[in-house]
Every structure is written in structure tokens, then in C-alpha cells.
């Protein structure tokens, strides 16, 4: 590809006329600081996943059972499942971010923060309800 075919952020696509059908988009090394930040974000998600898995294991294995059968698993299993999903999806997010930076495209939006917030909120609400119900029963 010639220099005139390059697409950078800030230049309108197709401004220089019709583009030839590109088999592979032009890529260049992004600012290494952004690649490192992307890598740290991935690692932070991995620690989040591990924390959720560990918390779910501790809830199901170490907590005294609730009166309600399956009460511990009700709040523990969603956390473990969320941690497992985060481990896989955050790797895909890292890859998508890296690719977008290499191609000068806007960073893709990820549903992962929202899903994590919703799941943790629901589990917390269920936990509060369980604790209140158990407190009344005893």
C-alpha cells in the first residue's frame, strides 16, 4: 500500500477517493504506553476473575449452611461462573483493543463491566435477603 492509502484517526475514510479492496488493514505499532495499559487492564480483569472464583468457593465451602437448602450455592455459583466468563472474555477484549490500536480505530466497547456490576449487585441483594431471612428465623 502506498502512503496515500493510509488511514489515520482524524482523516475521513475514503477522502482521497475510492479505496482498493484491502485484504488486510494497514497496521502500525501503537504507543507502547497504551499497549502496556491494555496488558495491565487484562491482568486486573484476571485478578477480578480470581477474586470472584475464590469468593464463590469460600461461600459454598466455608460458610455455615443457610436454613434455605442451596442458599450458599445460590450466591456462590454465580460468582464462580462470572469469574470463569471474565477470564475468557477479558482475553478477547485485550485482543480486540490491541487490534483497534494497531489499526488506529476507536477502542471497541465491552459489555463486561456492566455484566459484572449487574451480577455482583444481584448476588449482593440475594445475600442481604438471605441474611435478613435467616436472622428472623433464629
Amino acid at each position: 500500500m502506498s502512503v496515500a492509502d493510509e488511514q489515520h484517526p482524524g482523516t475521513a475514510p475514503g477522502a482521497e477517493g475510492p479505496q482498493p479492496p484491502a485484504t488486510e488493514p494497514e497496521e502500525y505499532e501503537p504507543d507502547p504506553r497504551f499497549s502496556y495499559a491494555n496488558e495491565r487492564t487484562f491482568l486486573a480483569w484476571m485478578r477480578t476473575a480470581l477474586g470472584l472464583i475464590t469468593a464463590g468457593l469460600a461461600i459454598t465451602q466455608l460458610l455455615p449452611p443457610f436454613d434455605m437448602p442451596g442458599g450458599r450455592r445460590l450466591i456462590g455459583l454465580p460468582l464462580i461462573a462470572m469469574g470463569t466468563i471474565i477470564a475468557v472474555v477479558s482475553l478477547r477484549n485485550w485482543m480486540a483493543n490491541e487490534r483497534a490500536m494497531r489499526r488506529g480505530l476507536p477502542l471497541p466497547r465491552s459489555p463486561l463491566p456492566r455484566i459484572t456490576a449487574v451480577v455482583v449487585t444481584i448476588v449482593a441483594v440475594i445475600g442481604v435477603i438471605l441474611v435478613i431471612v435467616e436472622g428472623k428465623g433464629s
Partner: protein
Amino acid sequence: MSDDDASGPYGPPDGRFPYGPSADGFLEEAPTPGLAGERTDLAWNRSGLALLACGIAVAKGLKFPIEEPAHVVIGVTILVLGVFTWFMGQWEARKRRRNGHDREVASFSDLAPVAYGTAAVGAAAFVLALFFPG
């Protein structure tokens, strides 16, 4: 992953660099990573330590009501994953220091074992928590 081992010249071909503070979003000079590489090394260290702590907690703390010591197997697996993650962090730090510059970044094959290993631990934890609540 051809995306991750692109080894072309640093920056776009017109000699400038993206996402800079200038009006059109480009830098005239190559940005220096500064302490970003060191922060990334520390993030790798934290991740490895978190896995080691989790592995010890699972191996020593959790008591599954099953005869075979499944929690020890899972705990030791997490410990191995933690040691692997720590060494992978050292590998990335070594790449960063190599050639006298700070521009080496992680590749997909570096991160995938950590991600899939954690996912496997999560899947095993899910099965154990579902069928063998303590």
C-alpha cells in the same frame, strides 16, 4: 496471531505517532513509555501472587466432603498457574528491557495460558461447588 507479531517500523509511515496532544491527535516524536513498563511488571507480580495466595487457600483451607483430596489437586494446580504467571511476568519484563528500549509488548500466546488457566480453575470450582458443597 499475525496481529501481535507485526514487526514493522514503529509508528505510522508518515513518521508521526497516534493519540498525541496535538490538534489532529498525532505526536511529532516517539512517546517514551516512562514507568508504564514498570507498572506492568508490578501488575504481573500482583497477578502471580494472587494466584499463589488463592492456591494455598484452596489447598489448605477448603474442605470438600469427598474422599479423594480434590481440593489439594485444585490448589496445587492454582499454585502451578501462579508460578507460571509469575515467570511469565519476568519474561515480559525481560522482553521490555531487551534491546535497550521499552517497546516490547505481550503477545496473545503469552496471555492466553493465564486466561485459559484461570477459566479452567473457575470451571473446576463451579463443578465442585455445585456437586460437593462443604
